[in-house]
Structure formats: structure tokens, C-alpha cells
């Protein structure tokens, strides 16, 4: 028996409808996981092998090699603060509202420990508990 071939031809179409769905799913993933840096001050961070993800919305204390302090409560970009006194005031402003607010110390690797000691002192006296020392992973460029 001879089979009759159907005359209806299939239009060559690449189904692209679901591609946008996948792409938007990936966008949402990267949007959620990307934490935009509040501090773009160029500095050489210390390198460590062990690293943990910092908490989102953490307050940032930025210390450059020339001992300049910058501070952000976690929402806005960093601003210059007037020495350790200005930094202490800014830290107290954050801990007064929420004592469990996380803090990130972003300091240049060449900074003297004396400065870090002063910052830790202020954090301790303000009642802060959660502190992360920002670092670059070993092997990272």
C-alpha cells in the first residue's frame, strides 16, 4: 500500500518563546546575588584563603593606606568622615538603631594595625558584634 504524504508542510521555526523566560530567570538570580559595592575607593585588600560572604546591607568602614576613613551605613555610598572621632560617631549612629547591624572593615593591607585597633575599639564600645574583614581570595587577580 502506498502511503500518501501529507501536503501540509511544517514551517521551519525555532521556538524562542521560552528563551526569554530562562533569561529573565537568570537575570533575577544575578540581581539578587549581586551586591553593589558602596565603596569604590581603590585599595590593595589583604589576601586570605578562607572567605565568607558578607551580609547584605552591612555598614562599610573604609580605610585607605593614608589612614583616611570613609563610612557608609549600608544604604548609601561611602562618605568621608573626620578621623577616628567622626567614625566613632557614625558607628554609634548605626548601632543605636540596631546593635546587631553587621559591619565590614575594608582596609588597605599596608595600613598599620594601630588604625585597625582603634576601629575595633570603637566598634566594641558601640556594642557592635558582627564584623567582617574584607579580603581578596588567594589567587584572585
Amino acid at each position, binding site marked *: 500500500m502506498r502511503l500518501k504524504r501529507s501536503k501540509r508542510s511544517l514551517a521551519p521555526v525555532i521556538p*524562542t*518563546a521560552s*528563551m*526569554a523566560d530562562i*533569561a*529573565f530567570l*537568570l*537575570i533575577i538570580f*544575578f*540581581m539578587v*546575588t*549581586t*551586591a*553593589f*559595592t558602596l565603596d569604590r575607593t581603590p585599595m590593595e*585588600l*589583604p*589576601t*586570605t*584563603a*578562607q*572567605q*565568607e*560572604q*558578607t551580609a547584605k546591607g552591612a555598614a562599610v568602614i573604609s580605610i585607605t593606606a593614608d589612614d583616611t576613613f570613609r563610612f557608609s551605613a549600608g544604604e548609601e555610598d561611602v562618605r568621608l568622615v573626620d578621623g577616628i572621632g567622626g567614625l566613632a560617631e557614625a558607628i554609634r549612629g548605626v548601632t543605636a538603631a540596631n*546593635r546587631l547591624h553587621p559591619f*565590614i572593615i*575594608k*582596609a*588597605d*593591607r*599596608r*595600613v*598599620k*594595625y*594601630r*588604625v*585597625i*585597633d582603634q576601629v*575595633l*575599639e570603637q*566598634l*566594641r564600645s558601640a*556594642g*557592635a*558584634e*558582627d*564584623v*567582617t*574583614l*574584607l*579580603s*581578596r*581570595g588567594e589567587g584572585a587577580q
Partner: protein
Amino acid sequence: MKIRRREIPVEIPTASMADVAFLLIIFFLVASFYSVTRGIQFSLPKHDEAALTSEPEAAVLIEIASDRSLTVDSRPMALADLQGYIGPKLQRNPTKSVILQTALDAPYQAMTDVFDELRQVGVRNLVIPTSTELEMYGLRQLK
């Protein structure tokens, strides 16, 4: 005369939507790559809590001098040997306290190097006393 209406297929053009979406993906991918959001985390003692939860004598005392040399329990030690020294102590007592004391003139990297080693060996009870706390506990401040 009868005018024949040409039928327009009903469809939403979605071909360019994927292009826009992939462009956004690339943007977020690059942004997440450049943002440094990782580091070494530690907890400061609670406000009403003593900085040292154990006696300084019962803890391992690591001192970092201004020239980055290490002294562990009053003995000079290389950074590479630190894990071998603390590892067995932690196996016997996983909650063994370690006090990390850094000279004020030492570079910050010297402190993070030791901190990193301690994290790798699994020290849970790490104390980083500030100058005021050192005075409080009668420990000398390193120069």
C-alpha cells in the same frame, strides 16, 4: 468589486526580548564578578561580656611583632608551622581559646595572614583584644 482583506497574523514579537534579557544577564554577571563582597568574619564579644572568656594562661597566645615575626606561647614560630602547633591542641579541646595580639606598628596584612591560618585550622574561640582590653587583662602591648 470585492476587496479581499489580507489577514495579519496575530503575534507578539518576542525575538528581541531574549537579546535584551541576555544583555542584562551579562551586565549582572560582570557586576557580580567585580564586586568584592567576601572576607573573614568574626564576632566581637557582647557589650556586657568579658573580652576573654577564659584565663589568658589557658589560651594559646599568638603575638605578631612589628617585623611580622610570630611568637606563640613565648616561643618564636614560622607562620607555616602555626597549623601544626594549634591543630593537635584543638583536637584535644575544640573550644580552645586563641588570643591574637598584634603589634600596633605591624601591617594589617600580617594580622590577616595569621587570622586566615587560624580559620583554616578551625579555631572557633578566637579573641582579638584591643589595646584597652589588653590593659584590662594585664597583657603587655606589643610595640
